[in-house]
């Protein structure tokens, strides 16, 4: 395999990707049983992005996330049981049931939270980068957002600021081709969002977002630059969500052929085949990992289901600290 990554690291990356996929499939299953209040935005299909980027990060590094954020949380090291509890609105969830699927945060692992306002996390990530610069640490921030967010003014304002101040931020655009139901070509003339980096005088790169090693490599270079004080990078990861935008969306605006084409490019299957092909891992080891993950997810569901709802009066707490 043409990579300097250790076997241990590669296996861990596969484990994380499979963990995200299994988690999301379980969330979808629970939703179908009407056990999930509100809405959900599943990350299935985009796992290579979160894992490829976060595999370059340390615990002290930060990420910001979006409404489609479960995968980012898991990739940064948050516990599946507490994410699941939050999604079900339970007291044991990361936000004590106040945030839900679209607002998970785990500050103990540098996950600065998911914002459900499209593009709103971009300036916040930039601010965390400013904080790092002022405090003089060698942390970095990875800021996840979608193709839709790249049309918000916050994208322009925040990347420009990060550029002029050379902040240690990696702007990661998860281009899954659709902003809700609106295809990218309807809302921008360019094909590569990464090209916008030119306007800010920073490096921009478009990668196959379904190839975890390609994402890893692009992020590795960006993180290295950021840690050295050489400023931000815009990485565009071309990917695809397997399900619709949210739980009510059958995604009929996508052709069957297009969906099938992308399913053939499934990042997990591709990575698995590659690992097997290059003898990094055996089929038996894969099965063992998958079994362990599925057990973990079952335990997460059990934990979440058995947890209590918050007491109603807790609605009045935490408005101020």
């Amino acid at each position, binding site marked *: 395999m043409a990579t300097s990554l250790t076997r241990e690291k590669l296996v861990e990356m596969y484990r994380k990707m499979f963990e995200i996929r299994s988690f999301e499939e379980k969330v979808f299953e629970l939703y179908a049983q009407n056990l999930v209040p509100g809405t959900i935005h599943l990350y299935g299909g985009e796992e290579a992005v979160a894992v490829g980027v976060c595999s370059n990060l340390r615990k002290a590094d930060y990420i910001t996330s979006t409404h489609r954020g479960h995968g980012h949380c898991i990739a940064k090291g948050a516990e599946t049981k507490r994410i699941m509890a939050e999604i079900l609105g339970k007291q044991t969830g990361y*936000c*004590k049931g106040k945030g839900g699927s679209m607002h998970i*945060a785990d500050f103990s692992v540098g996950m600065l939270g998911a914002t459900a306002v499209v593009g709103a996390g*971009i300036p916040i990530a930039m*601010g965390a980068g400013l904080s790092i610069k002022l405090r003089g640490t060698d942390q970095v921030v990875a800021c996840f957002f979608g193709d839709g967010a790249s049309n918000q003014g916050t994208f322009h304002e925040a990347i420009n*600021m990060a550029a002029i101040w050379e902040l240690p931020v990696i702007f990661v655009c998860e281009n899954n081709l659709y902003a809700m139901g609106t295809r990218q070509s309807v809302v921008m003339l360019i094909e590569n969002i990464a090209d916008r980096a030119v306007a800010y005088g920073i490096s921009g790169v478009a990668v196959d977002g379904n190839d975890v090693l390609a994402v890893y490599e692009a992020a590795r270079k960006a993180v290295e630059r950021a840690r050295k004080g050489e400023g931000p990078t815009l990485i565009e990861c071309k990917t695809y969500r397997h399900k619709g935008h949210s739980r009510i969306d059958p995604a009929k605006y996508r052709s069957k052929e297009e969906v099938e084409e992308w399913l053939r490019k499934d990042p997990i299957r591709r990575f698995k085949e590659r690992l097997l092909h290059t003898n990094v891992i055996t089929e038996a080891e894969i099965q063992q990992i998958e079994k362990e993950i599925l057990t973990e997810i079952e335990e997460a569901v059990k934990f979440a289901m058995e947890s209590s709802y918050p007491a109603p009066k807790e609605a009045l707490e935490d408005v101020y600290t």
Partner: protein
Amino acid sequence: MRKVTYRDALTEALREEMRRDSTVFLLGEDIGKYWEGAFKVTKGLAKEFGDERVRDTPISESAIIGAAVGAAITGMRPVAEIMFGDLTSLAMDQIANQAAKICYMFGGQVKVPLVIRTPFGAGVNIAAHHSQSLEAWFMHVPGLLVAVPSTPYDAKGLLKTAIRGNNPVFFCEHKLLYPLEGEIPEDEYTIPFGVADVKREGSDVTVVATLYMVHKALDAAEELEAGGVSVEVVDPRTLVPLDKQAIIKSVEKTGKIVIVSEDCKTAGVSAEIAAVVAEEAIDYLDAPIKRVAEPDTPIPFSPPLEQHVIPNEKTIVNAVKEIV
């Protein structure tokens, strides 16, 4: 005690807190060494603390507040300046959806210690985009604290408290107050939020006012005193939290209340205070609640037009006379 301007009192608060705590830093448009703030509140600070901690930004209000939010949740204490209060509309998502909600939405995991300073107010002929009083917008967002200092003493003490606190503070200044002089102590002091100040004691009628209107109310009180009417002027100093008890206590004494606010009347600051009095102190009232506020129009440019919409000494006197 010594005399300083409202502007200098604010600068002193910033300087003292920056000296005390290295995590405090300032960011905003033209606040640095070249311009030192559109209203000169950051005068001398870039020279003392450097460009990193007194940071000139691009004209990007949303990213200014976003930067402050991101810095606040990762260990810093940013003080962001928005050059005119009207321009906070450009940063409304970051203020109202992010800064205000992050602590709650994430279950109290993180504090958001940031201050947004901005001047409101009409009276200098700069029309509809630079003259509004929008305090009520921010009162309507749970998670924000809202300060409205009317004197140099209050400005300094409240700003220091705001910077030291762990909640996002929307700190309203008033552009006509910057040159106003007043006394402040030689020694360090802070003023707690949620504690009103009786700016003038009286027995016949309570006038509640904030920011520049406190001074108009005091002028009106002076004139009314000559006519034998004793006016008590109560300045809430912070709108969130609001010192309801101080207002109610005054109304209990006087039995009458006039609420003066420079913002539009509909759903404004005066509406909220009137509702508090109606809900919690109606038994003390001997007359209807009166409100003096701007009519529901944008702020016009031409001096006679602008002066027509801003509450003044005369409109306050007239309102008091209607109920005493």
